[in-house]
Structure formats: structure tokens, C-alpha cells
């Protein structure tokens, strides 16, 4: 097993995922198999190879810094936000 339980717990925390208890062992097993599988990349000779940044070697396009969107806050929040008040998103208390 290339990953142990502790490592998987750590990765899950970094990814902000609360894993279901009954699926935890399976996750450790399958993640280990994936990591073992991608480990074969280490055999490739990549000396002096520049890592790919873009498949077409394009650079990032820029646009004029002009306002193009109108305010749609009420529409956007009204349709999908789980909890809002006065145009603000509500979350559990952060600071005691």
C-alpha cells in the first residue's frame, strides 16, 4: 500500500472532504492503486524537457480593463444560494 490511513486523512483534510467512515478503507486501497499506477512516470527520461504550459503554445490573451457585466446579484443568489441575507452569504460563525 503506497498510502497509509494517516496520509489519506491528511489529503482529505487538504481537499476539505469528510470521508464516509464505511468507505474509508476502500478509499485508501483505491487511492494507493492510482498512485502506484502513476508512479510509472518516474521511469520516463525527461532530462531537459520543458514542462508543457499550453498545447498550442498560446499565451494568455488580455482584454481592456472595462466593466462588461451588469449587477445580477439578486438573480444569482436568489436562484442558488443556500442561505443569504441583505445580499450577503450566510455561513456558520467564524470568530468567537
Amino acid at each position, binding site marked *: 500500500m503506497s*498510502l497509509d490511513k494517516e496520509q*489519506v486523512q491528511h*489529503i*482529505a*483534510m*487538504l*481537499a*476539505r*472532504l*469528510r*470521508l*464516509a467512515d464505511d*468507505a474509508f478503507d*476502500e*478509499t485508501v486501497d*483505491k*487511492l494507493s*492503486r*492510482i*498512485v502506484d*499506477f*502513476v*508512479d*510509472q*512516470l*518516474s521511469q*520516463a527520461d*525527461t532530462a531537459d*524537457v*520543458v*514542462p*508543457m*504550459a*499550453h*498545447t*498550442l503554445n*498560446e499565451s*494568455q*490573451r488580455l*482584454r481592456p480593463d472595462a466593466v462588461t457585466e451588469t449587477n*445580477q446579484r439578486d*438573480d*444569482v443568489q436568489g*436562484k*442558488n*444560494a*443556500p*442561505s443569504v441575507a441583505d445580499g450577503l*452569504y450566510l*455561513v*456558520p*460563525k*467564524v470568530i468567537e
Partner: protein
Amino acid sequence: MAELHTLTLTEIAAGLDAGEFRSIDVTDALLARIEGQGESLNAFVTVTADAARAAAQRADDARAAGDAGLLCGLPIVHKDIFCTRDVLTTCGSRMLENFVSPYDATVVERLADAGAVVLGKTNMDEFAMGSSNETSYFGPVKNPWGAEYSPGGSSGGSSSAVAARLAPAATGTDTGGSIRQPAALTGTVGIKPTYGRVSRYGMIAFASSLDQAGVITRSAADAALLLQVMAGFDQRDSTSIDRPVPAYTEHLGDSLQGLRVGIVRQHFDEGLEEQTGKAVRESLAVLEAQGAILSEVDLPHLDLSVPTYYVVAPAECSSNLSRFDGVRFGHRADGAEDLLDLYCRSRGEGFGAEVQRRIMTGTYVLSAGYYDAYYLKAQQVRQLIADDFKKAFEQVDVIAGPTTPTPAFKLGDKTDDPITMYLNDIYTIGANLAGLPGMSTPCGMVDSLPVGLHLVGPHFGEQALLTTAHQYQQQTDWHLACPEDWR
């Protein structure tokens, strides 16, 4: 006259032009099929019957007024990864079970502007992560060629719907083969254009450097027709390429005389099921008889394409999917103790097992101490893979081979081992890593299941793929084969 549900887009357009029937007639016929016999396939997440009928009426009125766009009154369906204003866009996930997009994706907008009638949104692997449609929160889609078989994935609802004659055409997305593999496994035609050819705006992101929108149809001519409308520059996608769109449909009749077709030896190694290989070789002989010149080309890093993909794609997915936090939209867990707990619970409940695995794989390969060994290394190997293709395309115009190693597999067959499932995309993934256009067209049957011929072209080489597939379809009738229960 043929029954309306059996017609291709091109045939429907001709019938509408000739006044043989109206768009509302075709729309009603297909909706009755989707809501009747079609239900058993689980190919749809949402059916937009009322909106479709209204759009068909508008199209019929526009046509009567002499104001018909290129796709006026032609019925299509969208993969549920494309944002559609005021209609559910679930991406096959519990996370977005109730998500109603405030805007249309560019693809959706362009097709609607050209007059297309949208019948509904198709089922898919959750966040397009899967090759069998089994990771969908809404349950697996069935293959019309046999209900125990997978229709492929992630655009499995799209491929199943088109194969079952529930719709003549569907949009799809392809990050590692998600259009071409389901097309091959259902006997339909699928094309993934060059990276940047079609706008990704409003297409829910999985792996942004690999994702590309395309179509699943029943003929190369229909694929050309839709691509004509979908392709082209979009200010709202920062990786959209500003380059003119060729008149794809006008060059379908070009001869294959002198077309240089490359065959990759490794594509025919032991990983390929024997009968599938035989069907593909026979299709290559058809191209040769039409004047194509076959020669061998080498892609020495092909074996590393799947492991490269399973570093790059999860890395990008872990970053893209960090937006789902239970705060602004999407699933929110009840009973969270604090903000951190809200994030962890909402994401733990909202994402399925495969999506969680990919997020964690991506998190791992990007984490401190592992970035160079995995992510950077993968981007180097990716460059080697792209260089292999570049060299090959100095010698040939098109690379041809199998789309998948086997015909459709049974639902449940590959769910235990993620690697077995991942290897299903071995022939298709290279095109995504190198940003190249790829296409699958039906080329035979093995044990009553369809198999596909895969074509890959150089950047912006869509025309050669469409013309090759169209010319092949003039000599063969595999693309016309219809599952017995869905005639």
C-alpha cells in the same frame, strides 16, 4: 416516408425545407419516444418538453416567414454539463442536484441562435469523471445495444439517446475520450475538436487544459453541420482561439485520393481485443481502396499517456472543484459545527466516490513535496507525447486506429478497479493531452456490439477527420446500424 425519429439532422433539414413535415411534428415524435420507451435507458436527467415545443413553434414560424437559420427547427439534446439558463444543470452530481444556471453556455447560446430545438439534458458520469456512466448520481445509463451494457462515458446519456433514436444529435464533452469512447460503444459518430476550437464558457470545468466540447451524431455530415455553428472565437473563454471556422460541410465530398493515413503499431498490440482489431483493419482497407496511402508511424510515449492523464486531470479537477463549498451554490450539509466543518461535510455529501478519489489524487500530486515528482513530471511527459504527435503529423495527414480496446463492457464489470476503467481510454487520451482533434465513426460489429474507428488530426485538422469519416460512410453502412429494439 421514413418515420420521423429515424431521420438524421441533414434529413430533417431537407424535409423541413421541402415542407414534408414541420419541426413541431419531429419534436412531438421524439418527445413521445423519450417519455415512452426511452425512459428505460435513463439517458435523460431533464426533459424540457414545453420549452422544446415552444422553440419548435417559433422555428416553424420563422421558416414560414423565410427567416430560417442554419439549424432552424432541428432537434438536439445537451449533455447536462452545459449551463442552460433557468433549466437544471446537474453535471450528474448530487452537488448540483438543484442548480439552476443564471446564464447559457456559449455552445447552448450558439445552437439556439441558429434555431436548434433542445429536447432535454442528458445523463453523464458525475462531473464527467468516468468511462461508463456509472458514477452519475442519477444512476447508470443503459446501452441500447443491450441493457446490461454500459453506453460508455462520460457522455453516455448523449450516446445512448442518439443510438436509440431518441434524438438525432447531442452535445458532449471530451477530457480523455468522453465523446469518442461512448460514440464507439453505441455505434454513433463523435467528434472532439482541437483544444480552443469550441468555447468552454458555461461548460462546467473538469480539467481545463483538456476539456473540449463536441457532438455525438449518426453521420459525419451532421457532425460537420453542428460544429459549423458551435466552433469559433469567444471572448468569454480565455483559451478560445481566434481563427476563422472553415466551411466544414462544403468539403465533405472531397476525395481521399492521396490522403496520408498513419497507423500506430502499438495501437494493435496485445491490449486490443482480436475481433475489434480485425474490424478496424478492414476499415483501413476501405480507406486504402478509396485512395488513401497507409503508412506506419510511431508514438513511442503512448504507454505513458494514461498515467500522465491521471496526474494532470485530477490536479486540475482538485483545483476546479474547490469552488463547491456549500456557501454560494450547490449542496449544503445540515448541522455543520463551524465553517470548516461546513466545507468538509458539504463536499463529502455532495460528491460521489469517484469524484472524491480524483480530487484527492489531484490534491496529493500538487501537495508540498510531491509536486515535482508528479505534476511537473507529468507535464514534461505530456510535452514528449505532444512532440510524438507533431513528428507523426510531419509524415501523415490523419492517424487512424481503434477508438477503444474492446466493444461495450457490462455495467458493474470495471467498477472494482479504477485502473481497469482508466485503461479503456488508452487510445483516446493522447489527443486531449496534445490538444488535437479526434473523431470516432462506427466500423464494425463484434458479437452484436458496435466498435469504432478512431481518427486523429493535427491542430485544427477537423476537416480531414470529417471528410475521411464522411467518405468512409459513403462506402460502408455501419453508421446506419440500429439496435433491434429501437428501430
